[in-house]
């Protein structure tokens, strides 16, 4: 085994190395969310805008870009989840409980990171099955094909799929709960990235914490605006 392989393996095995990888993959996921949100918000720009955007996503780089993004995100997610589960298993094995437990400073969000994270993982699996693979619905059917100005032939009607998806109360409530849990996860995760990468100091502590809350709030409001508009205000349903 050469020196480089040894160094990489010992980094992967060490507590700080694992945490740095969790933070690095966390940054990728933190950057993905606003991109995904901006795409989703095109729903409010009308049917053609979001359908055209969806078509562009699928055709970009001769249809290769979307797969590069999917494989990249899947890799990032697998590393993030695998390492956090490993870290948690180790923590549970070495920590001991008090007969009189107390918490001094740790926020509720920070203490439920593994549970919020696993709930988000379950949601991601459901979300991809629902809107990407389209299992258990007829979103792949001919009823979800439509025309697009300036484009020959039919395209997938993402607009109708989203409106129909969020017209179902059960789906929508689960979506809203999952997004809320995601934002709890982000509120701690955002600031943690800075601490784990050594970019936080006492001077910047409050600024980073506030930026984390602001980011989580923005993501929460942005993603919830669509199901709220569709289910509660009938947006796109008439």
């Amino acid at each position, binding site marked *: 085994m050469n020196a480089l392989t040894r160094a990489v393996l010992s980094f992967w095995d060490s507590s700080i190395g694992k945490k740095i990888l969790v933070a690095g993959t966390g940054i990728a996921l933190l950057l993905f969310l606003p991109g995904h949100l901006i795409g989703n918000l095109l729903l409010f720009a009308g049917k053609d805008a979001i359908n055209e955007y969806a078509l562009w996503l699928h055709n970009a780089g001769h249809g290769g870009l979307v797969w590069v993004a999917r494989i990249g995100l899947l890799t990032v997610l697998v590393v993030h989840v695998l390492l956090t589960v490993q*870290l948690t298993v180790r923590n549970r094995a070495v920590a*001991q409980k008090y007969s009189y437990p*107390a*918490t*001094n400073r740790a926020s509720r969000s920070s203490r439920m990171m593994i549970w919020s994270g696993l709930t988000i993982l379950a949601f991601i699996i459901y979300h991809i099955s629902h809107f990407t693979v389209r299992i258990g619905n007829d979103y792949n059917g001919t009823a979800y094909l439509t025309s697009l100005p300036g484009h020959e032939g039919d395209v997938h009607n993402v607009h109708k799929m989203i409106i129909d998806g969020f017209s179902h109360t059960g789906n929508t409530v689960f979506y809203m709960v999952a997004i809320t849990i995601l934002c709890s996860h982000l509120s701690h995760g955002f600031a943690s990235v800075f601490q784990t990468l050594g970019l936080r100091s006492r001077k910047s502590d409050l600024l980073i914490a506030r930026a984390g809350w602001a980011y989580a709030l923005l993501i929460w409001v942005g993603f919830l605006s669509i199901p709220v508009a569709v289910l509660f205000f009938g947006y796109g349903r008439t």
Partner: protein
Amino acid sequence: MNFTLKVWRQNDGDSKGHIEEYPAENIPIEASFLEMLDIVNEKIIGDGGSPIHFDHDCREGICGMCSLTINGVPHGRENGTTTCQLHMRHFDDGDTIWIEPFRAGAFPVIRDLVVDRSAFDRIIAAGGYVSVRTGAAPDANAIPITKEDADHAFDSATCIGCGACVAACKNSSAMLFVSAKASHLNHLPQGAPEKDRRALNMVQAMDEAGFGNCSNHYECEAVCPKSISADNVAKLNRDYAAAAVRKALA
């Protein structure tokens, strides 16, 4: 003052411990927490029982020997205070007080409230020092050090190695201790030549000693009797990453 104590009793590391209740009666208001335990122990010994074992040494808040998790908080609820400097006037007459050892897998119980913190010694032996020639003391101002660096190093050096950070951590992580000891030396020119080796070796020793991983809860910072900042943890993360990259490319 009168209190009801709920104290962890455990014969040795192999036996199962339990909480036992003791009355603490006629405690002077000026008594420290450890003096209160001394009074309770005298009564237990007078009644023919086995006294409550607990660690202590200087009783001046500087040695890092006293421990105790009091009502779930290592060294008790008073900020920046060791157990020996905690006084009974901070409690209310009639309070029930839970007293447990510093709990962590890496701190096995020796007896009652006494735990083995030698894992910290192994971490220090792995890199918490500077290698210097012995002989006459060097001139104090031979190596210029900025006031800021000296202050940072001194703040980190005030860590007394008591282990409260580990005891407060939900993951039993020793990151605040290790980072304070590493930062103390990494801030100074005398520590610079061994900076990378120190970061890598101390973290490896920490992991091998059976401590958990930092989850950035900052419970350690909240209970530290010397108010060591979690900035040290950020610095150690940074130093470790840089050292790992340099080692991989060397």
